[in-house]
């Protein structure tokens, strides 16, 4: 066993407030040895990042360390002054942040930022520091480093910037690296590269690394050991295979069961009750209720939506046409969605997924091609009124639950707005009744109607969005990354809700996501997007088992493989036997 580098003992972090101290971390014990990667996993608010900041002495005021000790290579570093901590930060403990787009000073070249850090810690002269800067960039895999070093951050892509951030963290050869959600802001293929890089650095340099993340996939890929955090407490620590495959603590167990499985399709996600009450749904009798009425739109066979040769072009640059360039956001895309199915669109950021959703809902005007919805070509419709008849039948659920509902309206008005706009209810009293029923139906409860959106969590707001989408009695629902801003347990709840609603109301869905396991759980058929083109359309199972197009193969191969991810039936049986014997 290699030596322990960072040892956190009984760490307590508290945030004093008017209503007494809020304990953000309680009696946390963690340790990491050289050449080892410790994963710290938990949902938002679990206190993961707080621990990293506390170790670095970077807690934001009024937060403070209320107890416990931190040892770095046997030396006690907790309780040191800021001046002493500055000699440890960057030099002995490096830190990597989540968002590479905002972690670098936009006004200085990479060289200047690297050299400044190198000189602060190592006292090199300019030429030596520059040489080291270039060799660091080379180590983190930036091609042509002697030239790239003089570029500014905005001249690098997101993945490259994260490499620069890593180079900055490595400037003074730290013994320990804290990586706080190092790949959360990156696309899957970039994520895989960055994780590879981190693992390589740890093995080669013998540093100890703590990776803080909410993403089980990341943990499964790189971590040697895992600590699961829940409300400021480490509930369980152990080897990765053990925690992912056979966790002891009930919270770890439910957290891991909520992770969408990439390998097998389940009918429903197991529920996690630990973080947020799932919300009791009061089922409505749809055969008599307003929501269930007029569900018969006539024809129910064949395709509901048929998109042919769809084109969308964005122009950028020059005001006078000089130096302008054209981006083909959607390039000759054709697909169809059958009645009652869930059609997935998967791809990396910038591949044109969301643009398609906006074209279908006529938010954008297409540059070519046709969009046939229930037998009508929407691109041919000129009059807004006529378009609204069709728009009523299709509704959208957006990614960000915080900006997609009007913060200044009560929930009742948010949901009643489409009913009033399309004049779907005969009276105001009926509208109110419908809103209350909808809230019950999505599991928020009718009491939510008089509140404002800020009183709800992300998952609850997404339920508001869903209720609003249902308020026009649509037949077609477009979900644009509906759960990617949510924690995994909340994601499981929302996805279950969407599945239930689809079954009850016979909805047809277009489900856009970058997350392959989620797609596998939700969709019947999938279209894979790359650079504005739809490169493959296949039945979901077929795509995951035998992808045809090279890009699909590439995407599927990058999907985190949860080796030994808890196999519920067998492991539970084993655990039960172990206890019994």
């Amino acid at each position, binding site marked *: 066993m290699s030596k322990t580098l960072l040892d956190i003992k009984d760490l307590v972090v508290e945030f004093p407030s008017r209503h007494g101290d809020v304990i953000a971390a309680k009696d946390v014990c963690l340790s990491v040895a050289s050449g080892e990667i410790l994963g710290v996993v938990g949902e938002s608010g679990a206190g993961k990042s707080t621990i990293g900041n506390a170790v670095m002495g*970077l807690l934001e005021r009024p937060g403070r360390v209320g107890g416990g000790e931190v040892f770095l290579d046997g030396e006690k570093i907790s309780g040191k002054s800021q001046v002493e901590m500055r000699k*440890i930060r*960057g030099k002995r403990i490096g830190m990597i942040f989540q968002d590479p787009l905002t972690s670098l*000073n*936009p006004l*200085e070249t990479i060289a200047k930022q690297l050299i*400044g850090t190198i000189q602060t810690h190592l006292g090199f002269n300019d030429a030596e520091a520059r040489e080291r800067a270039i060799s660091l960039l080379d180590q983190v895999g930036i091609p042509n480093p002697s030239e790239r070093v003089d570029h500014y951050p905005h001249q690098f892509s997101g993945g490259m910037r994260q490499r620069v*951030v890593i180079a900055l963290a490595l400037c003074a050869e730290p013994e320990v690296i804290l990586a706080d959600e190092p790949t959360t802001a990156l696309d899957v293929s970039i994520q895989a590269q960055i994780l590879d890089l981190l693992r390589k650095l740890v093995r080669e340099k013998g540093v100890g690394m703590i990776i803080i993340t909410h993403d089980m996939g990341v943990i499964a890929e790189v971590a040697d050991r895992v600590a699961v955090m829940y409300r400021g407490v480490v509930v369980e620590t152990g080897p990765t295979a053990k925690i992912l495959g056979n966790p002891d603590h009930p919270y770890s167990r439910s957290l891991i069961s909520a992770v969408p499985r990439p390998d097998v399709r389940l009918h429903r996600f197991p529920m996690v009750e630990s973080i947020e009450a799932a919300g009791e749904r009061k089922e409505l009798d749809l055969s008599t209720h307003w929501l269930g009425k007029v569900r018969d739109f006539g024809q129910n066979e064949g395709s509901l939506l048929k998109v042919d040769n769809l084109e969308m072009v964005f122009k950028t*640059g020059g005001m006078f046409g000089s130096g302008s360039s054209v981006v083909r956001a959607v390039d000759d895309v054709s697909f169809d969605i059958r009645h009652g199915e869930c059609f997935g669109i998967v791809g990396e950021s910038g591949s044109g997924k969301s643009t398609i959703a906006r074209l279908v809902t006529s938010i954008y005007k297409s540059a070519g091609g046709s969009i046939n919805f229930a037998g009508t070509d929407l691109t041919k419709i000129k009059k807004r009124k006529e378009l609204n008849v069709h728009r009523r039948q299709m509704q959208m659920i957006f990614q960000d639950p915080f900006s997609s509902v009007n913060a200044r309206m009560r929930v009742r008005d948010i949901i009643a707005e489409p009913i009033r706009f399309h004049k779907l209810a005969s009276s105001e009293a009926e509208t109110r009744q419908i809103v209350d029923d909808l809230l019950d139906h999505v599991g928020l409860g009718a009491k939510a109607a008089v509140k404002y959106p800020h009183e709800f969590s992300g998952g609850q707001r997404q339920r508001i969005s869903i209720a609003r989408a249902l308020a026009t009695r649509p037949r077609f629902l477009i979900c644009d990354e509906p759960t990617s801003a949510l924690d995994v347990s909340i994601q499981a709840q929302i996805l279950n809700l969407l599945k239930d609603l689809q079954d009850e109301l016979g909805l047809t869905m277009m489900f856009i996501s970058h997350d392959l396991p989620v797609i596998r759980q939700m969709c019947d058929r999938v279209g894979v997007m790359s650079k504005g083109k739809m490169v493959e359309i296949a039945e979901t199972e077929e795509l995951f088992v035998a992808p045809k197009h090279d890009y699909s193969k590439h995407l599927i191969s990058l999907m985190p493989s949860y080796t030994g991810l808890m196999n519920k039936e067998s492991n539970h049986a084993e655990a039960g036997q172990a206890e019994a014997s």
Partner: protein
Amino acid sequence: MFKFVSMRLLQSIVVMLVVGLIAFGLFRFVGDPINNMVGQDTTLAEREALTESLGLNDPFLVQYGRFVSNAVQGDFGMSYRLRQPVSGLIAERFPATLELSLISAFLALALGVPMGIYTALKPKSIITRGFMTLSLMGVSLPTFLIGILLILFFGVTLRWLPTFGRGEVIDLGWWSTGFLTASGLKSLILPAITLAIFQMTLIVRLVRAEMLEVLRTDYIKFAHARGLSPRLINFSIALRNTLVPVITIIGLQVGSIIAFAIITESVFQWPGMGLLFIQAVSEVDIPVMAAYLLLIAFVFVVINLVVDILYFVVDPRLRVQS
């Protein structure tokens, strides 16, 4: 870079032509210029001849063209009131206003920016609270009141400083300066402070707000996590990022110091353009007003150009046209 600057220059010329059109419109449509020039007993024939000789019967565009070409050569016609060439009047007054404006802009920046930084870095200190209270007073007290209070205290009660005029000036070619005599410098103090106080308080609040914003960003957090010294973080990284948006506002403020020194100039009887303008307004001296309008527009256009170029220097993201 060159393309960018030349684009901006072109746009500036368009702006100046439009302002010129408005200034010319003043001439042409506000009142009758002939009435302003001739006496009561001029005959109709004489008026006709004068109209013809001044080219007032020519088509509109021809007259506008002539106005522009004259203005470019510095000829704004004769002042109705003083019967002197407007360009001469302006040239006489311009140095006074510019000296006053530059000194007060310098004061506002030299005091305002450090105060803004201090209040952002030490948000809880007593000095910060003092600065913020003072700046609130500075923003809310009207300029003329500050001027009068200063005159009352330093001029009348203590008798330390002169309360009106420029003092002795020395002519350097066409430029008359008050910088080189003791009385000139002493006369400058009160009006410069009066003019600077409002701008300064504005700059304090602006710099503070921007800096607080920047201090919350990830790259500042990351800089701390790399163990860089607070001095480097605060003054090299944070300050430069703070200045990007602040430059625009400060540029416009400097413009408005020059353009709207009017009140201060009236209070202190400062012989600058503002005073000239006020007198021109009260006497409907249209050529002077038109020239003033053009000049101020020119000042703003130049300042905006400088601000744009400064942006280029400070922010590398604008340099590379992607």
